[in-house]
């Protein structure tokens, strides 16, 4: 079943049930997204992908709204651009986005989001941010929730969308809402099994490998010198694909391609963190 919809004045035919986001992308229209991921179902929390739909009082999230016959959509009207700019401004003014994916940083420029508008005069408290201490609790992960935009992806990946471990949830509510283990207990004491699928989906660098964190802290993280190689995990017989990011002949980050039929972007602790053995030079004692 196909549906005919109109996007920015152009009629196009899409299969019914496809999301407006996919429909727009098929038409070559770029729509920003933060909380959307290919390997997770849409939660539509970031609201940066909203579009204008005729007949709807409010803007609609293109990541989750399904195309239906006769829909008339505007993807870059002033009204849409204003909301996108504000969403980006709200995030940029409350969250440290400096290690975000390049796309996100690009949209901030493109939409002219100006986070400085939200700063206060001298006589008032500074605007609220999510700044908090970095969580360094084990040898594998770093959790820096000062960089968290609460896109829910890590909770989905830890929960029923992939790992089904449920070590983390959103706790508290409103601006105080945060990703947390039970009672904010340290990760090694939680249910976490270190699959790293949360890291795999994090768009802002709030969740990263310790290896990456240490290189960044030392100022030695150098993306220009890095290369990414796709290969197959050396462990069990499932055949998950790995993307090995290497710098100076060392694996500095392991991810998994989200479009791969076997692993859908997800890995276990062995595939994600257990590739370091390649660095070990063979012993020559005998």
């Amino acid at each position: 079943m196909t549906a005919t919809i109109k996007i920015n004045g152009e009629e196009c035919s899409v299969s019914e049930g496809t999301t407006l986001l996919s429909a727009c992308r098929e038409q070559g229209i770029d729509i920003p997204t933060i909380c959307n991921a290919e390997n997770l179902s849409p939660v539509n929390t970031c609201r940066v992908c909203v579009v204008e739909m005729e007949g709807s009082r409010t803007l609609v999230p293109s990541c989750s709204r399904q195309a239906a016959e006769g829909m008339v959509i505007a993807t870059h009207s002033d009204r849409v651009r204003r909301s996108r700019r504000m969403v980006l401004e709200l995030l940029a003014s409350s969250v440290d986005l400096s290690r975000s994916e390049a796309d996100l940083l690009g949209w901030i420029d493109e939409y002219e989001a100006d986070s400085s508008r939200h700063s206060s005069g001298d006589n008032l408290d500074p605007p609220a941010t999510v700044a908090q201490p970095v969580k360094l609790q084990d040898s594998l992960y770093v959790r820096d929730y000062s960089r968290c935009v609460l896109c829910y992806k890590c909770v989905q990946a830890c929960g029923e969308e992939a790992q089904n471990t449920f070590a983390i949830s959103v706790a508290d509510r409103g601006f105080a809402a945060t990703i947390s283990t039970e009672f904010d207990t340290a990760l090694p004491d939680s249910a976490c099994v270190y699959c790293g699928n949360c890291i795999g989906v994090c768009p802002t660098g709030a969740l990263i490998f310790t290896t990456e964190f240490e290189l960044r802290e030392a100022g030695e993280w150098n993306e220009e010198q890095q290369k990414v190689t796709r290969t197959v995990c050396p462990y069990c017989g499932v055949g998950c694909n790995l993307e090995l990011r290497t710098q100076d002949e060392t694996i500095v980050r392991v991810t998994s391609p989200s479009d791969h039929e076997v692993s859908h972007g997800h890995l276990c602790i062995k595939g994600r963190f257990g590739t370091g053995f390649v660095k070990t030079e063979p012993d020559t004692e005998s």
Partner: protein
Amino acid sequence: MELLSRTAQATAEELSAIAGVLGERTEQSSPRLKRRGASRRTLLLPVLHALRDEVGYISEGAVQEISEQLEVARADIYGVASFYALLPTEPQPSTTVHVCVDMACRFTGGQRLVDDLRETTGDGGEGDIAIHESPCLGQCENAPAAYIERTGDSRFSLTGTTTKKILESLKSTDASSPDASDATNQPLRAYSIGEAQLLRRIGIPPKLASYGDFYALRAALENGPEWVLENLEASQLRGRGGAAFPTAIKWRGVAEARESVRYVVANADESEPGTFKDRLLLENDPFSLIEAMVIAGFVTGAQKGYIYVRDEYPLACARIEQACSEAVTAGLLGNQPAGGDFSFHIELRRGAGAYICGEETALFNSIEGYRGEPRSKPPFPTESGLFGKPTLVNNVETFANVPLILNPKKTGAEETVAQETGAEEFIQVGTEQSKGTRLFCVSGACEYPGTYEAPLGTPLSDLLEEAGATESARVLLGGAAGAFVSQDQHDVPLSFEDTSAASLTLGSGAVIVIDPKADMSDLLGRITDFFADESCGQCVPCRVGTVRQKESVARIRTNGSDPTELALLDDLDAVMTDASICGLGQTAASAIRSARHTKIFK
């Protein structure tokens, strides 16, 4: 979910509280065979409530135990508990006093009461009493109000209260049932302009004997579901919760849904500041709601109904429980109600201090044992609601209209089932697009605050006059999510279409009257605080936008406004209104916007 090693152990007291809800923990009959039963996650909030009531808070040991028994992850349970204002995850003093600081209570010194109580009791110190500022407690007609939780004892409301009254009530031991508490001694303050319909039983003891038989239900059984739907359609009844959606469309949608398991939900999470009419109905006319829900069960084919009552309404909870048990005993609820060939059971669910749970999909999540975060719509509840099944959800007042529509006059036990219905009579009252009467909650700066039943279309000025408000009074219509009425709009007819044309909203029916000399800037500050406190945090426009709005208003209050600041407020308004997931964010800028338009706030 994996069984994890225990990090903490529940105490005997906690185990007993948990067993009270979940039953005794039973071991498998054989160590070599395990079966997974159906998910019991929906019992999460009830079990957390039991812990709050009996132990005072939700500890790590209790979470571990619940996690094992309900097979819900510890982090998930913590995420749920920490979402709700009334489910603390740290030890609490034995008494918690929640003092309302919204609207009418604010005008009558709620904030001073808080300060005074804090000083007197030491707030959590040796006095073993914690003082919390609370959003509106729905007792505005008898402001100021407090809601008190006593661990292992009781929870009750106090109205028209003072520091002295509160402290005295804490000393007395017979404050222990909501029925015995102060709130029941207050006048009911129910009035009507024209003939009372919805309020006709207010003041009569809420007993089945005085309610009479379920005549409307019997008429429905006799004439069939289609007859009910046709009458609802003919009545043009629209929802009274705020969105004013045609009720019959929802009923028919669920009745004709593809899936066979369906639910009926009464939204009694009345939390819009300045709103208390549903409380009045729940406390004083519970059978109207129950009868309407049984009819809904008959018509939609649902076998289970939930009444989700906000936790700050302990008396309403008690009376609904009592009424349900009376109805079951009388054979009007449960298996084959009134001899009909169907079954319908009602379960009461308590909210836990979250305004957002009045949003229907957030309410479903709450019943299901999740954080009260709204879902994306579509799909709408009639297609996929509670537990993902087709669900009819109506506000209490909406339900209360249904028996009236089906059977307007028959209230006495000696009368027989009506053949004619009240739909025709119903549409005689009201305006073109707004039929019937509506309950208005008038509070604040007026002589006779209270619940007023008035035909839809009654001019606001008439209502204000009845309530004894001065002409110069300011009015906030529809609660915190509503809008200020300018002086030249005071004669606006209170109908859906007229208010909408005037960029106003009837919303929940809150009519907050404000002394023209009152500190408006303080009230606006409080409204922005309210939305920032109550945002669920799910979407960016609302989570961050409500905070930025609050900061911006605070800057204007301190430094005065300038065009940059006002442009920022406009942008915040635009993104919250246009891009938020649900009605909370979409209306969070409404009061501020109207305050600017009406020059209350420059």
